[in-house]
């Protein structure tokens, strides 16, 4: 049978429609804010071998994680998959998951009694038990503390629900209504999408469909290899890091060698720090996912979301390292390591593509959880990832108030949060005099305050980028650091960037998170004065900052060109602007760094 490119395009379009339909059913019928508003979930369609053939437009971090998980599932259950089966798992070790809150629910699709494909969904559940509400406490030291581990099991066996699994899950979460509701949404999506995939395969015939899926993988591979071939060969090194854990943090390194060899990309994490006894370890499927993501962001172009393109990308990492840990390393808060892998990879790509890659973004979502029991002894949890700011690039200033490209999560409406949880948001805004200066400045940092209205609660916080700030590029300066503050009456307490224990809060306490501002691009003294005036008018920077950092002198709204020239020459010589911006930042947020 000859491949007809028109038919291939039509089938690809139909597969995309199925993946979108899966995603839409989940979004609209899910319960938790994490799924509905943050959209922390993903969907995919697979061929009979379990290889991804389409993905919904959802969360980039997730999308590259399906191949490892599907391969484990199909080999584990080879010859033992039947119509009406539905699989579930979340275990990072053995099942190919990423962290315990991510539930994978996968349904095989049969045509004439033979297995012809799968549809799959992955949703971040709001709680799976364990040491910390929300499943992202960094202070777990083994995966056994992180909640319910589900190996690859049949949630439905030939159409019959396995009640034991449902009941076990229900008993092992602090949020049974949300979790059972979100699982129902995942199941509904699988059932709808499964029917659609079956109809599609039937309309083309099994033999033809399989042939076209082979071609789809080859086509995606051709596309990505063509793009990679256009890059110069060579090995490019970059290192970035996490501040570390607790009161006295020890730097955790992410070191990467990115090699372009013809039409192949090799990514090697040798030299990266060893796995740690905190929940930030990223299992290897996660590391693969970040590799695919970074390559796709760097090279651009529209490539179908199918597994074929991944053949051109190979990642390796030392066993026992932070990015290839062994059991029982905990991994609940692995997201922060994902973000830093992404930053390190982009830093390496920036050496190849200086005109396309921006300076470092805010460093990934900050994840506060404020949890406790309300006056009726009902558990509550106020959560929701905070983002973000992009770094400056050759083309433009970094934007503020925008999701990290690696996560692309939404924010939770404040009014909904306050209606459901005993917290009051005290502010949600950009921070003046934040972000890295540059010809194109980094995006401004965000700040959010939470006042506790219940008697008491625990704060669990995951953030980073205080000691080591988001990097600048091409003489742009690094971004501004992140801070965690608790105001207890008139008393101010500064928390570590990533506390290794939950922090008690009492009624009336205000928790403020100031996120890192993004890195700048290019020499700040070359920034167009007109742009600086706009930043001053918009109260993103103060006139004093314009003067001390950019050397732009503004008198009554007008730029004093002569004075500006003199000031810029002076700054160039002394270089004091490189530290002045930090002083202005600390003045603005009103704390003194330790």
């Amino acid at each position, binding site marked *: 049978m000859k491949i*007809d*490119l*028109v038919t291939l*395009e*039509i089938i690809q*379009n*139909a597969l995309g*429609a199925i993946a*979108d*339909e899966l995603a*839409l*059913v989940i*979004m609209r*019928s*899910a*319960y*938790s804010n994490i*799924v509905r*508003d943050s959209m922390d979930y993903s969907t995919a369609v697979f061929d009979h071998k379990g290889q991804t053939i389409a993905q919904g*437009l959802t969360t*980039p971090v997730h999308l590259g994680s399906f191949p490892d998980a599907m391969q484990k599932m199909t080999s584990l259950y080879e010859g033992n998959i039947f119509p009406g089966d539905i699989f579930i798992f979340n275990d990072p070790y053995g099942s190919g998951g990423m962290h315990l809150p991510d539930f994978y629910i996968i349904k095989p699709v049969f045509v004439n009694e033979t297995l012809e494909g799968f549809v799959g969904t992955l949703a971040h559940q709001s709680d799976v038990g364990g040491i910390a509400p929300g499943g992202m406490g960094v202070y777990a030291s083994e995966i056994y503390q992180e909640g319910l581990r589900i190996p690859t099991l049949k949630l439905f066996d030939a159409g019959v629900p396995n009640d034991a699994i449902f009941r076990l899950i229900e008993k092992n979460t602090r949020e049974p*209504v949300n979790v059972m*509701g979100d699982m*129902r949404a995942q*199941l*509904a999506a699988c059932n*709808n999408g499964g029917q659609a995939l079956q109809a599609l395969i039937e309309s083309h015939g099994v033999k033809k469909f399989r042939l076209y899926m082979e071609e789809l993988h080859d086509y*995606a591979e*051709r596309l990505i290899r*063509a793009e990679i071939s256009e890059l110069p060969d060579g090995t490019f090194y970059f290192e970035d890091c996490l501040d570390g854990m607790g009161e006295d943090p020890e730097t955790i390194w992410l070191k990467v060698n990115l090699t372009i060899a013809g039409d192949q990309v090799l990514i090697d994490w040798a030299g990266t720090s060893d796995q740690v006894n905190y929940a930030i370890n990223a299992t290897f499927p996660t590391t693969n996912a970040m590799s695919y*993501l970074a390559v796709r*962001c*760097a090279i651009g172009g529209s490539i179908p979301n199918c597994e074929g393109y991944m053949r051109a990308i190979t990642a390796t990492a030392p066993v026992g390292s932070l990015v290839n840990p062994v059991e029982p390393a905990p991994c609940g808060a692995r997201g922060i390591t994902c973000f830093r892998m992404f930053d390190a990879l982009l830093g390496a790509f920036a050496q190849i593509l200086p005109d*396309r*890659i*921006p300076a470092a973004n805010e460093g990934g979502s900050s994840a506060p959880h404020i949890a406790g029991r309300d006056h009726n002894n009902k558990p509550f949890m106020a959560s929701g990832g905070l*983002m973000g700011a992009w770094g400056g*690039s050759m*083309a433009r200033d970094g*934007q*503020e*108030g*925008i*999701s990290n*490209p690696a996560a*692309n*999560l*939404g*924010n939770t*409406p*404040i*009014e909904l949060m*306050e*209606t459901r949880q005993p917290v009051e948001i*005290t502010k949600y*805004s*950009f921070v003046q005099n934040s972000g890295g200066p540059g010809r194109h400045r980094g995006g401004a940092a965000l700040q959010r305050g939470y006042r506790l209205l219940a008697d008491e609660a625990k704060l669990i916080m995951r953030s980073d980028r205080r000691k080591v700030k988001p990097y600048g590029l091409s003489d742009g300066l690094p971004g501004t650091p992140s801070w965690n503050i608790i105001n207890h009456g008139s008393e101010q307490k500064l928390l570590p960037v990533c506390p290794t224990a939950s922090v008690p809060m009492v009624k009336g306490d205000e928790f403020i998170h100031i996120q890192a501002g993004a890195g700048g691009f290019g020499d700040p003294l070359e920034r167009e004065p007109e742009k600086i005036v706009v930043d001053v*008018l*918009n109260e*993103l920077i103060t006139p004093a900052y314009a003067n001390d950092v950019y050397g732009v002198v503004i008198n009554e709204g007008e730029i004093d060109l002569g004075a500006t020239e003199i000031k810029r020459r002076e700054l160039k010589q002394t270089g004091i602007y490189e530290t002045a911006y930090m002083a202005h930042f600390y003045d603005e947020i009103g704390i003194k760094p330790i």
Partner: protein
Amino acid sequence: MQSSSKRYYRVGIDIGGTFTDIVLLDQDGNILTKKISSTPDDYGRAISQGMKSVLEENGIDPSEVEEVVHATTVATNAVLEGKGAKTALITTEGFRDILEFRRVRVPELYNLDYVKPKPLVPRQLRLEVKERIGAKGQIRTALDESSVRAAAQRIIDTDVQAVAVCLLHSYTNPVHEQGIKDILSKMLPPHIFVCYSHEVLPEIREYERTSTTVVNAFLGPVMNSYLTNLKQRLEETGIQKSFHVMQSAGGRMSLDAAIAKPAYLVESGPAAGVIAAAHIARKAGMLEVITLDIGGTTAKTAIVENGEPTRTSEYEIGAGINISSKLVKGAGYAIKLPFIDVSEIGAGGGSHIRFDKGGLLKVGPESAASVPGPVCYDTGGETATLTDAILALGYLNPGHLVGGALTLNAEKAVKAIEEQVCTILDKPLPEAALGVFNVAVANMVRAVKSVSTYRGRDPRDYALIAFGGNGPIVATAIAHELGMKQVLVPPNPGVLSSHGLLVADNTHELVKSFSGLTNEIEINDVRRIFDDLAGKAIDALIEEGFERGKTSVQNLADLRYAGQAFELTVPLDNDGEPIECEQMASAFHDEHFRTYSHKAEHEPVEIVNLRVIAKVAVNDIEPPLTETKAAAPKKPKIRQAYFGASSGSQETPIVGRSDLVGIEMTGPVIVEEYDSTIVVPPEWTVSVDAANNVLISRKSDGPHEN
């Protein structure tokens, strides 16, 4: 049919980016149409000139014009082009960046060059006032009037023309917004347009409410001067009668209401098309239909159930063309008001044909639009388009379109397809052109699916009603793909939207947030709110000059499972009986099952909003019925047209709509009309009904049966 003694006309005017369509409907239901080029520098000019000439040409006295109903793209364009008023926002202290944070998420993956839409109010004009209302409506911090006065002074000093006021939790307690209103109404000069979120959209979710209020303010001054000016111009031509404007939700509103709430107008044109299609289908006895409107750059679809178009309040203006727009938000400016739920993708006649780096054939979303146009227009377009492929297939008249007004260069089109498509696909002309056609159809199928299968609806249970210049060309191919059995093409398919303006009801919709579980609330609270909303909505219609006796009211509720994050809007028809709690819950369980194929009947159902739509049905005129006597047999023209490998190239009769009266023909047949072409492939039959609709039916079952 007996003629009324007095002659009068009702006029529908639809401005699009390219054309302005005028439709006149007389007292007996006869239709006159006029299509003229739009004048984007001053849209009103084309209208007044067009009106003048259509009245003159047909010997109509302006005094015979009973009413004018208008749909416009002016509001949409003002937002897209950033040409609204200089606008300020007054908001709660600590929250001025809500507008710019948006929902943070971006609509494109893997794109480090993505730039999010610029906020309609720059940060320097987002002014904070000291106040805070809590989630239960309690006052946490009293309104500091001096901070309001400072903001007002800043507005006066900076030459701002419009102000949006949106405070946290004002949907549950508007007292602080009202306090601001007291101060602003004293301090600001009257020409400054001010609107308040508790009046525009009293609903929870601060970003969506802020954004909606801001869009409304941004459009306020622009739409005020546009609509006032237009009314004046029409009066100058001698038209003195009532002037109404179409809303995005498909109802009509008075000029004054439109000036106060211009955010309700942004998708008025597409809404009118769906309303007309639903109306015509209803008359033809079809209550379940999917509408398909294809022009030069986009294909738009909507679903009609029980005769009513379905609606949504998840809309973004300027979100571009994206089938997944409901999934991937953030590309435009959120407006959380009722809209007819129209799905749109970038595939139309002008869509470019190209090959990507991996060698796959793509059609759209880039488009040749009307300038430079498809290659066959011979007006400078060089990239082959879908229209060129359709011409090469023999479906279009190779000489001209629009009744001869647009001449075509078929030779050029064929050459473009041969050079740009045949050589790469290594296929002969008709096969290559059909490949292009099928890829475009596959894109359009996705738009139909997004309003049907994505929402748990099986398209095989619906008829397809096709309009727009290109809808009737591809309709049968789309129906075939989805297993749909019947296609209807209404009369004047190219100007259907303007027709829709004349058959839409006058409506007034009100909503109120209400929080509680159906098994815990006091039902009388709900009934009282419904009564209160209904009273206000009816009063608004009476104020517009309608009689109380002609109004009717529909109650709806936005419901969800307790804990669920997304609501479904469920109509609560109860034949005039008081609404009961169990009735609300069971209506929700049914709708949830229908939409998502699962339900949880043991779980409590939560009320989020209560809605009321008051309407006055438009004066309905039956169009004159066509004589059903068979037309005198005449020998039709013949053209070669290609229908795929199995059918091959066939000698295809070319007929007019009137040639089909009283007979049934079997495809292949092509029906050529002034503003459209209808393709009837083999295996389909075609006829005309008494209302002059073309009906196309499938003889045998197609693919995708399951």
